[in-house]
């Protein structure tokens, strides 16, 4: 009898508990994350909020993708509710929030579930894109980015345990979503807060839905944009918001110059 593949849940929790190479191994229980109560000891914060330079370095990875937020909003389809996603976030096994979460094996395991074959040989372009983002996360050396990415992987994989979302996610946007949460949101909000704090959980759920190409159930684009803008930690961080504004400015100027070149020059009157 051929060996049965290990249950997904087993593989997932084991990979989530793996340390990155050359780092200490951490055996983490696969229990859901427990929000701290007033009496409980606060969850240790292994790393202070990312220093501005670290955050900017992570944001640079996101900016390099040159995502056009306006188009993303415009193309969103009605999706799952914020509450569904937020609930899933609250149910994340603690192992996913380990500082040492080994993001690449975790991503490989989840893709293996999707594709049912050895991940290194996955021919699918989208699968490779996801692995590339996961590898960028690993290479960043940022625990915030790793944990943010791990939470996204959890959201994808949690159907196995908690049943399908009301509106299925499109794998087309997996790589983009993984990058958004790891490199846009995680640099400004510790992913542990996505689980622990209701507002940040709402922000993470909305960010996840946006980059997954979905409008929150019951909201139109204007409402969804308005609420996320209010929650957006990046916009509320003055220095990083400036960085973001400059990035968007760069995109705009470049785009306008290209459009202007394609359109026409204006009449000129002399040599310069």
């Amino acid at each position, binding site marked *: 009898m051929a060996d049965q593949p290990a249950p997904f849940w087993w593989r997932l929790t084991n990979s989530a508990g793996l340390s990155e190479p050359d780092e200490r191994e951490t055996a983490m229980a696969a229990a859901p994350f427990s929000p701290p109560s007033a009496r409980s000891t606060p969850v240790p914060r292994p790393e202070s909020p990312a220093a501005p330079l670290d955050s900017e370095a992570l944001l640079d990875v996101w900016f390099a993708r040159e995502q056009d937020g306006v188009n993303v909003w415009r193309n969103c389809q009605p999706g799952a509710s914020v509450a569904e996603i937020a609930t899933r976030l609250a149910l994340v096994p603690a192992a996913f929030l380990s500082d040492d979460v080994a993001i690449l094996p975790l991503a490989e395991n989840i893709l293996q579930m999707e594709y049912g074959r050895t991940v290194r040989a996955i021919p699918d372009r989208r699968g490779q894109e996801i692995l590339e983002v996961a590898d960028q996360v690993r290479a960043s050396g940022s625990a915030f980015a790793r944990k943010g990415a791990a939470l996204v992987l959890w959201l994808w994989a949690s159907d196995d345990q908690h049943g399908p979302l009301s509106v299925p996610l499109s794998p087309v946007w997996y790589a983009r979503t993984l990058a958004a949460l790891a490199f846009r949101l995680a640099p400004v909000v510790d992913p542990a807060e996505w689980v622990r704090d209701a507002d940040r959980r709402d922000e993470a759920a909305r960010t996840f839905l946006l980059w997954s190409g979905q409008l929150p159930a019951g909201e139109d684009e204007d409402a969804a944009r308005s609420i996320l803008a209010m929650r957006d930690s990046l916009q509320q961080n003055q220095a990083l918001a400036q960085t973001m504004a400059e990035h968007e400015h760069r995109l705009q100027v470049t785009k306008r110059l290209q459009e202007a070149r394609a359109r026409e020059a*204006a*009449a*000129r009157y*002399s*040599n310069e």
Partner: protein
Amino acid sequence: MSDPPGTATALPHPDDPLALAEYAPGGAVALTDAERWPTLDAAGAARLGAVAGHPLAPAWVHRTGDRLSADAIHRATTPLPAAGWLEEHLAVARRLPAYRRRAERLGALATWPTVTRDDLLDDVSAFVPLDADLDRMVEGSSSGTTGRALQIPDDIEEVARSFHLLVRLVADQGIDWRPDPARMALAYVVHQRQAFTYTSSISSFGQATMARLNLHPSQWPAAGQRTGFLLAQQPQVITGNPTSLAELLHPELVAGLRPLALFSGAMALSLGLRRDLERAYGCPVIDVYGLHETRPIAASADGGPFVVLDRRVHVEILDADGAPVPAGERGEIVVTAGENPLLPLVRYRTGDFGRLVDVAGRPALADMEGREATRFVAADGSLVPCVDLTQHLQAGGAHGWSVRQAGDGAVRATVVGGDPVQIGAALERLLGRPVPVVRVAGLLDLGEGKPRRYESLAPGA
């Protein structure tokens, strides 16, 4: 007025191995006439149509307008106030993305770092204000003779205002230049193998006509066509560079044209050519020094030093380390330029060298270098202006280059970046002789100064 440009022979020839796609007739046409000239009235349209469709007109490569609304026309005809502009300019510049992280350390002008063309090539958007009105942006490429093409955000109104600068410079010579419905207001002439050519209406100058004309013989297939067209239009003012202005010395043109003034730019105008043009036309010849990035900086109407223009421009002379040279000493011309609201530059290194002197109480630039007008001698004896080489060096992807012709006619090129094989083949076709091309790693390997070097020691160049 929405017909496609030019119905005459399409140039360049489709089989021409040196043809560059962007110079195909109509290749860059995208707007409607209502967008090109929002205020154009019936009389203006008739004048424009008469030029565009003149039987001797060249095959227009392009169609373009000034895009000025009525409000914009009013603004374009009014010079920006120059009093106290520098403080305001520096305040704007401190908010540019390029300076944000060190804005608090930037005080008076002397505390600012210099900016180079490479900085703009790296990320020109960092020098565009975050609150700039990008709807007024048109794209300009700095061409020409100064290395890798740079995309520059130009402001529609500033481009139009540059025309009125010419009007003022003519007025400074005691000449009243007004629109004359019977004449073309301005002919902007070039002389190169391929070029954008078009005719347009100057909305802010009585909707008078203007045209960018390529005087290269290949653009005028019919005998007498070039002279006939120019004489028919009788341009009031002609602008160009030394190569194209030299064409105006053709006896038929000298006999028939009656310009109010001639303007030269882009390259150094030799005293000999200046005097020949002055004698031929009996009008002022005004040499304007400027870069596309900075806009016009200074002008010389008499062949002497270039007097810095009374506009939002400030000139310094710095040494290689960025320190001011002693008064009157030679160094690099560094310009702070505030005319283009989309590209407010602070201490921009021009790559040109000269001395700052005083002319009647005004700062002026003397002994300038860096604008040499080089021509190469092709195997058949014809003269090829360096701008023709530039087009193919840029098309081949070169970021910088040195092209030298020895006294025996042999030509060698050194390039930074690009495809040496493609470039060598193009230059060989252009000059009719083999051109070995060597690729080097960086601009520094070309030596100091502008990332272009042209030199020809061939007799007759």
